[in-house]
């Protein structure tokens, strides 16, 4: 259980997140939806313990987050893998830190099995620069789930991928989450409403400047649907319309805010 209470943070006098209250139950797949500059990535970094909130509290399983959080692993849009190590070494480095007692051969086997799980069995000895963007993100996901941690944080992980790779990786993440049997909580940042509807059991919509939680929707009914049925399902379409309305209102507010463009913020 992740509990966020009254969380605010400002950078250089500008409020980025304003009094966020959000509870994430165990085993949930929460999609954080919002336009760029709404503070959703900042919120993810707060959960990870990479940033410290100015006020309010964040606790995971009742323990206050203070510094890089051991219960979490992270996948970023880019630069998750270390380019100077082979894919296999990337995984083994993470595994070695998480399980210092295991022998090198055991770590190697584990790394190989996780790479196979994401369909990268042959990429153990390859450097990230030799992989496509989609393969790199697969390897990053493999590294993130190879270590024993309950919360997987993903910051627009598929933002730079082409539609086909994107769909394949969405399926992969959805399957991995379903297979964990409620053991793993996922917090997934995206600005794509359809992606959120396909992946999330819950969807939190963030508004911009300052970042506020505008809506929190339950999507667990639609979540079980296969991709081709999702957007012919009435309940899903209703939720999509509802979220789009919130989304559009926020965008119009932003467009009407003359200062926003004059200051050049957020672009």
């Amino acid at each position, binding site marked *: 259980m992740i509990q966020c209470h009254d969380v605010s943070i400002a950078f250089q006098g500008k409020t980025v997140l304003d009094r966020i209250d959000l509870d994430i139950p165990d085993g949930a797949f929460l999609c954080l939806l919002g336009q760029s500059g709404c503070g959703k990535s900042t919120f993810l970094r707060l959960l990870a313990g990479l940033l410290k909130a100015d006020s309010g509290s964040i606790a995971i399983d009742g323990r206050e987050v203070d510094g*890089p959080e051991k219960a979490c692993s992270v996948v*970023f849009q880019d*630069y998750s893998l270390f380019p100077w190590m082979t894919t296999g070494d990337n995984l083994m480095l993470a595994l070695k830190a998480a399980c210092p007692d295991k022998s090198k051969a055991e770590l190697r086997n584990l790394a190989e099995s996780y790479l196979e799980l994401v369909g990268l069995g042959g990429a153990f000895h390859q450097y990230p620069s*030799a992989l496509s963007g989609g393969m790199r993100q697969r390897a990053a996901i493999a590294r993130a789930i190879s270590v024993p941690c309950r919360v997987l944080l993903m910051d627009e992980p598929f933002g730079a991928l082409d539609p086909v790779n994107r769909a394949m990786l969405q399926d992969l993440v959805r399957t991995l989450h379903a297979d964990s049997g409620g053991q793993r909580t996922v917090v997934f940042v995206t600005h794509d409403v359809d992606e959120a509807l396909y992946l999330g059991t819950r969807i939190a919509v963030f508004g911009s400047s300052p970042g506020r939680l505008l809506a929190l929707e339950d999507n667990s009914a639609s979540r079980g649907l296969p991709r081709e049925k999702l957007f012919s399902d009435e309940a899903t379409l209703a939720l999509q319309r509802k979220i789009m309305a919130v989304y559009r209102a926020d965008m119009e507010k932003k467009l009407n805010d003359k200062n926003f463009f004059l200051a050049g913020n957020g672009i």
Partner: protein
Amino acid sequence: MKILLVIELIALTAAAAWKHDWFALAAGVLIPAAALVRVLLAWKKERRTAIIDAAVVLESFLLLWQLTTSNRALLDPVLFPTPENVLRLFFRELKDMLHGMLSSLYLLGVAYFLSLATAIPGGLVVGSSPRLRNAAEPFSKVLSAIPPIVYIPYAIALLPSFKAASIFVIWSGAFWPVFVSTIAGVVNIPETLLDSARMLHLGKRTFILRILLPGAMPSILTGASLGLVFSFLLLTAAELIGATEGLGWYVKNFSDFADYARVVVGIIFIGIVITAVSAAFKRIEKRILRYKEAVQ
């Protein structure tokens, strides 16, 4: 370009046959022949062009040298020896110079290794702390701009031997570029990559050796190659301190005796050594940064 090369080749070979000039024969036949072999061995077109261009520049220089010093002696023959004399002397002096090279490379190797061994760890520590970085910046700016030869009297007075003083002078020249570039390398590691590393909860040692060091490595290597150039520049200065052999000593010694043919021989030999050392450095650099060149 190819036509130029052929014209030069014919001119020099003709001159050689006419005057029994062994230098011209070597320059006219050996260099183009060597270039031709390398061109035939090179696969890429750009590489072939580069070899031909380099051969043309070299040939042009040799031709100019030959013309200005041989026939009418446009230049003072004491200061500007003929290429033929230099070539003959080169082979006669080769044994002494190889001896000197070993002594120089020892001095250079020890000093350069020490500068890497101090500047890289120092740069990693200073680079990863904003406070230390700000504190070190003004000092490194000032100290890196002072030519290390000014330290020679202090080095001789404070250090136990002339050799140690020589090593110190080279060390202090190579240290700063490596130190500064290591700091820059650490600062330029993408923040997201560091965040990724933080989330893995690595030990301090692992974090430095497997994240900071390789992350800063491209920048470190740039600084290290600059440091190598600096240490060659300072070699002569260092060998002025009580050395009785070495490449820098050789050139300086014969320059003092106004034996400029040997000075030129020494300069050419130093050029060859530098070329060989930097070629080796490039290879090592390429090997370390091989992760970058993988193709999709």
